């Protein structure tokens, strides 16, 4: 008996190790002629950069004519980036343009479906998205916008449907995927006010409908409706004044996202409309439309530098209704560099 058991164990070990060996991707020797950077002639010319060599490269890489490896595809959904740019804002009357330098950073993490799965989750997170504009109000104040975490979860289904609990159950096909989105820990400082005035977006949650139904996240068209709660705080040294702003499932949003397969280009168009209730001022309608374009212009050590332009027109949020509901344009143009991507 024990001999049989021993035999079985050995057989399993053998099978397991053989299977493991069969699935290991062994490094492939690539016959690439590396040459000196001073322009010396390569020992073997471009003809040695064979199809085999290109195939041996990781996905998203290629070889130049001197055999040097370089990355030519990127993933803007997974990156830690810093950015710097010019921020300009102007009121609806275009009376005075306010210019500022904007610095920022943030982490984006995303996953997508493999494509062969019938159902899976498409996840994306933005962590510590932060923008700082020093020098507001004649250099005295700082404008800051930061969000601790924002998560978006969309359920991909090859054949999306809703099942009604009838007898027998009735399955109705639907033309969209269903998902959800939340963000917590938003904070905002305003250039018009000092740091004792802060606006906290305590929580935002949305129900999402995604209409393009791709397993990847390179293209999406999302409509959402949700809840939003903002807490305004103002301290005068001895007491703290509070203000509450609420969108009770009245915050509607639309977003179209498109990026090229190699991640070099990205386009995002968004629109928001939210009737909001404020404890000082009652109901107000907030809205905005925005456009964002990104393009990889260079990469340093295979880490991409993107040029970007973002524009937004809509309501500007100010705590306690300072100055009433203001409308205006905002433009941000600059460069971002992914330290990890």
């Amino acid at each position: 008996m024990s001999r049989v058991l021993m035999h079985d164990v050995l057989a399993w070990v053998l099978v397991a190790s053989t299977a493991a060996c069969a699935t290991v991707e062994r490094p492939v020797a690539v016959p690439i002629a590396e040459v000196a950077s001073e322009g010396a002639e390569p020992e073997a010319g471009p003809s040695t950069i064979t199809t085999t060599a290109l195939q041996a490269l990781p996905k998203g890489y290629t070889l130049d004519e001197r055999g040097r490896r370089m990355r030519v595809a990127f993933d803007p959904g997974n990156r830690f980036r810093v950015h710097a740019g010019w921020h300009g804002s102007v009121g609806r009357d275009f009376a005075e343009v306010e210019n500022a330098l904007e610095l920022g950073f943030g982490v984006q993490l995303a996953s997508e479906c493999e494509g062969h799965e019938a159902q899976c989750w498409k996840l994306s997170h933005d962590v510590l998205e932060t923008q700082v504009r020093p020098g507001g109000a004649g250099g005295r104040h700082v404008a800051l916008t930061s969000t601790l975490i924002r998560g978006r979860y969309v359920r991909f289904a090859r054949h999306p449907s809703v099942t009604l609990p009838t007898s027998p159950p009735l399955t109705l096909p639907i033309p969209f995927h269903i998902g959800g989105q939340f963000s917590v820990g938003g904070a905002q400082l305003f250039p018009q006010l000092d740091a004792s005035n802060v606006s906290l977006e305590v929580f935002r949650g949305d129900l999402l409908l995604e209409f393009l139904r791709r397993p990847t996240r390179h293209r999406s068209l999302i409509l959402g409706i949700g809840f939003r709660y903002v807490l305004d705080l103002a301290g005068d040294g001895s007491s703290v004044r509070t203000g509450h702003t609420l969108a009770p499932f009245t915050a509607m949003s639309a977003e179209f996202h498109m990026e090229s397969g190699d991640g070099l280009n990205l386009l995002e168009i968004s629109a928001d409309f939210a009737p909001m209730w404020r404890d000082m001022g009652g109901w107000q309608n907030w809205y905005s439309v925005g456009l964002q374009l990104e393009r990889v212009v260079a990469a340093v050590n295979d880490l991409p530098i993107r040029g970007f332009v973002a524009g937004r027109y809509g309501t500007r949020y100010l705590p306690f209704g300072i100055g009433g509901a203001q409308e205006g344009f905002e433009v941000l143009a600059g460069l971002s560099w992914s330290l990890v991507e």
Partner: protein
Amino acid sequence: MTRSLFATCVAGLWIGFSGGVLAVERPVMTWDDPIECVDDGAGRFMRLQCTQKEGRKVCLTSGRFVLGDDGKESEAYMEDLRSCGKVQPWERLEELKKEGWQFSEALAEAPEGFARDESGRLFQVTFDLRNRFHLGAYWNPLLDSDGEELGRTQFDFGWRAYELGYSRKERDNYRGIEGRVALEPLEFSFLAFGYDSNVNSDEPVFWVTTFIGPPTRWDVSARLGWGIRTLKVDYHPMRSKSVEFENVALYGSWDIAHNSSMANYFRLAAGFAVGQLFNEVVGVNSEGAEEASVETRVYLDPLVMLGGEFELDDAGLHHLGLNLAGSARLMFDDFSSALWVAKAALTYEWVVLAVNDQPVSVYVEASGQYREDLPDVPQKYEARGLLGLRFSFWAPPQPGGE
């Protein structure tokens, strides 16, 4: 003095243009292919270098003695011949003829950097001027804030050497005992020792891929080095009454471009220097009489240098140099404002002849200075030229594999 120097320069140029005595089209035995010799034991001796190229079997032949003025072999051996691999009897020539080898009289082989004339005399034809000691004499006209001085004479001397490190990845450059003396009025400068280094890296420090147009990769290599300069004296710079003593200068450098041996380079360097400026100050003593005294000011120079050296030909006969340096001089007794010191020099050196294989070159320099630190003439500028001859000693042939 000036006139005689000028005449010397013209003579040198004429000799350089005339090209010497050579230019005879004869095959030359190579240094690397084997040599065999035949000897009849009765005084006849022939050196052979047999090679088969493109189906032709050719034996180049030469003797081993220098030819005399009468065209016959003298008793003097040719210098630096390679030794014979084999010495065989004279009958070997007949065997070679039977095997189909053809014989052609040739010039004997010469080591790298040398050539032989028709008589078999050896002479150096390439020069590594970065390994030498030199003496020079020049005509030195200048124009400065005080006026012009066209009849000046200048002499200079200096030593420099370098060492290529393992795998030619590092290069150490040394210079020292370097001085210039200008007469009427007396002005001199002297540098005791200078060192700088370069590193040639195979791996780029970083690379940039551009995505405007087809993706293109640009490597930025580590061409970093450093340098030091110590004990430098300038006596009456720019015809002032000051003496400048630089204790030490330290700097880091980046070769924007250089060739594989790092001998030709274009470099950006930045660092600092510390020294003293001794100024002659004329004051009035307690008795009302004028009295000269020396004021000592200690300075710190944050300095930036941009320049390079370029050999314009493989033989090392033409050299071009460029040096731009600037510093915002800070005086320790008054740190509030900087005094600008800027220098620029463009040099060209051309080896026109060699005496006993020691090269003689024409040297031309155009330079300029602007200084705010000299008290007798604040905001002083100067432009000067140098034209003369340099006599270099112990300059070896150019190293191979450049």
